[in-house]
């Protein structure tokens, strides 16, 4: 007997209530983020932003500008490379210091050393601190201490990425098979031996692959830091943006996209090479040496290119400069008006991150369908390209454009976050859809359900937890980005920080940086809890 179609949607009531609840919550949040869809459609605004985007063509291509652009590209490459190298120097000891895999006491009867766990905790706290402060904040501070240019960016990258690498390195070391290391420690071997012969051989591919991935991120970060005056393409972009020179902005964006694509390809190549089957071992060793040599050559030339004078960076004079400058940050101010300002700034930043993430998730969900190949190969190629484009342009660069489109304020920041995050989430959502087992949806289709319902009740429930987890992860990243959006006029804590730094009220600035740190930690916590509850 054919099943009769039930016009009632069995899950409708629950979903409707859920949607209403979300909307009820979204209203005040949208208010704080000054969401104003009308501004987006206002013809006057469309004319300004449209006019600016229209002026992108023709691309600027006079020889003088191209010369500037070439130097900026090289400088950005150099900043990312040297920054990542220094970050590795910071991360390796921190990771070794904080991994539990090398704990003698965890293995069995060990010499009593109460201080060792304490040291591990201290190193972990330092790591947390380093990666908790966005590189852009470090860059802004170092631009003041070292002046304009790449040194500030390199140092900022080194600190934040040092913290990030250290955390992931420690996690990798913790997760590889500890057997060999434990055996060496138990047999009375030294920690160094346990690390080098017990842990590293299993962890190296993952460590290298993650470092390469970080280098790729560093390229994007190097561009963004230029927007606060730390050299490279970002600084050039800032100048062209301020002069409203669309052709130049477009040329820089094009160069940047090409650079990111090239870096992406290179890092894929390297990672695939790392995963090559062991029978090609001999070949791998030879090409490994060639690659290492080439890498060393690139690093040396990068180093020379930005003329990073480590002596000047770490010399006695620089030391006292940093000490003097950073010393003024303490103690953090905590008067009532300031705390009020911080509270409203935090709320605005939180709202910006929420609105940005939710908008991005909605857009990404819509785009994920064609991107997963559900609407034909042509649409798949087009949406994939669009998603890559959205993802390749950093949030802060989007913000400089959205500020023109909807005006200064948090809404511009939320839109910028949404655009970039939609590129990231769209791709992840599509991949989840492609990897989901097709059985449920196919069963619904064969029993006569229309495509839309088969998707809603067959495919969506299967990918929903994964989509949600990705979205929550991105929210953790977006709260950090929302905190610095204010540097380009998008409100929130970033604007307050820039203001206090401009007025040399460094105690106030310190309090705001602490608030940023706290907010990021709170969101991390909330997101982890939500994921745990939903998982």
């Amino acid at each position: 007997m054919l099943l009769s179609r039930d016009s009632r949607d069995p899950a409708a009531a629950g979903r409707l209530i859920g949607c209403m609840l979300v909307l009820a919550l979204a209203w005040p949040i949208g208010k704080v983020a000054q969401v104003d869809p009308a501004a987006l459609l206002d013809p006057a605004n469309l004319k300004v932003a449209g006019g600016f985007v229209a002026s992108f063509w023709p691309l600027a291509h006079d020889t003088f500008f191209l010369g500037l652009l070439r130097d900026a590209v090289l400088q950005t490459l150099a900043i990312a490379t040297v920054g990542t190298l220094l970050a590795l120097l910071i991360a390796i000891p921190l990771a070794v210091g904080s991994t539990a895999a090398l704990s003698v006491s965890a293995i069995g009867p060990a010499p009593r050393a109460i201080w060792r766990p304490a040291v591990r905790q201290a190193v972990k706290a330092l790591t947390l601190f380093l990666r908790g402060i966005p590189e852009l904040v470090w860059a802004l501070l170092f631009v003041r201490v070292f002046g304009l240019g790449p040194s500030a960016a390199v140092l900022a990258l080194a600190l934040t990425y040092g913290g990030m690498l250290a955390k992931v390195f420690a996690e990798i070391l913790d997760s590889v098979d500890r057997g060999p290391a434990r055996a060496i420690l138990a047999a009375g071997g030294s920690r160094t031996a346990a690390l080098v012969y017990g842990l590293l051989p299993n962890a190296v591919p993952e460590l290298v692959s993650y470092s390469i991935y970080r280098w790729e991120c560093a390229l994007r970060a190097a561009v963004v830091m230029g927007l606060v005056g730390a050299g490279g393409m970002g600084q050039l972009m800032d100048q062209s943006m301020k002069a409203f020179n669309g052709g130049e902005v477009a040329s820089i964006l094009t160069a940047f996209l090409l650079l990111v694509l090239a870096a992406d390809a290179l890092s894929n190549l390297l990672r695939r090479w790392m995963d090559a089957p062991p029978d090609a071992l001999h070949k791998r060793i030879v090409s490994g040496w060639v690659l290492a040599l080439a890498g060393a050559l690139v690093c040396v030339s990068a180093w020379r290119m930005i003329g990073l004078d480590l002596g000047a960076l770490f010399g006695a004079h620089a030391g006292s400069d940093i000490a003097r400058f950073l010393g003024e940050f303490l103690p953090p101010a905590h008067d009532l008006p300031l705390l009020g300002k911080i509270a409203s700034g935090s709320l605005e930043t939180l709202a910006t991150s929420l609105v940005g993430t939710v908008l991005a998730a909605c857009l990404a969900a819509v785009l994920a369908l064609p991107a997963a190949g559900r609407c034909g190969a042509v649409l798949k190629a087009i949406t994939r390209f669009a998603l890559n484009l959205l993802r390749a342009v950093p949030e802060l660069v989007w913000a400089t454009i959205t500020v023109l489109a909807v005006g200064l304020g948090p809404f511009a920041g939320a839109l910028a976050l949404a655009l970039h995050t939609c590129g990231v989430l769209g791709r992840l959502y599509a991949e989840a859809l492609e990897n989901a087992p097709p059985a449920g949806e196919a069963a619904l289709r064969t029993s006569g359900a229309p495509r839309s319902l088969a998707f809603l009740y067959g495919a969506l429930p299967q990918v929903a937890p994964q989509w949600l987890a990705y979205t929550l992860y991105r929210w953790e990243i977006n709260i950090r980005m929302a905190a610095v959006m204010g540097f380009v006029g998008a409100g929130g804590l970033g604007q307050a920080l820039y203001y206090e730094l401009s007025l040399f009220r460094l105690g106030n600035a310190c309090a705001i940086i602490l608030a940023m740190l706290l907010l990021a930690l709170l969101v991390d916590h909330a997101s982890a809890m939500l994921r745990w509850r939903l998982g």
Partner: protein
Amino acid sequence: MLNHFRRHALRGLAALALAALATPSFAQMKELKVSAIPDESPTELQRKFAPLGKYLEKEIGMPVSFVPVTDYAGVVEALAAKRIDMAWLGGFTYVQAKLRTAGTAIPLVQRVEDEKFTSRFITADPAIKSLADLKGKTFAFGSPSSTSGHLMPRYYLLQAGLTPEKDFKTVAFSGAHDATVAFVQSGRADAGVLNASVWDKLVEAGKVDTAKVRVFNTTPPYFDYNWTVRGDIDPAVAKKIRDAFLKLDPANPEHKELMALQRATRFVPTKPENYQSIEQAAQAAGLLR
């Protein structure tokens, strides 16, 4: 008030300490490093500086280089950290530099134009006719460190009984004078304020739609921009620099281009006292600690 006394006492102490140390042992300078606050685009600043740099090189007999900086406060910090020797500062950035160098930074010269500087309040909203009409509107300043784009307009707004953070719907910082005009023209800010000289320049160049954007208020005059050297520079060099500026004469064809680029008719000596009113305004507006 207590703060005020304490700061004076501190400054006195600092002066004493300096006097005690002032057995002049100026390291032989090999190069004069110069910078400027980025009130215009950095490329424009470098273009403007080129002929002046050449002229100074000849007059003081040592190489002169320009250090570009994109951030107002960055220039102040560079002067305090002795990474540059001389800077083109605005009135407020000079006061900041003075405080951050314990009162040792020396203002040398300024343009006659800088002795009577003003800011213009602009809007594209027909309903805004006076400062009082700004209540509840979106307002754009320039850079937080700008004298003519933030400090003095804020001071006069306060005098008119308006507290920006309380009375405006949104307070935004566009970052630069020309950006403020762009935001007001596009209606993204209901009103804004900028440097009178940049406004005039933009109007002359036809870069503003004056049918739409209009000036509805101009501030009373105040002292603005000057050339400042750090306090521990060799006094002989400082004197040479000052003399070189004062010698500039628009009637001299060799100086004409240089002065046109600096938009100066004549340079005159200046002194810290000229900026007392700016410092008081900054105190009153709560922009100094």
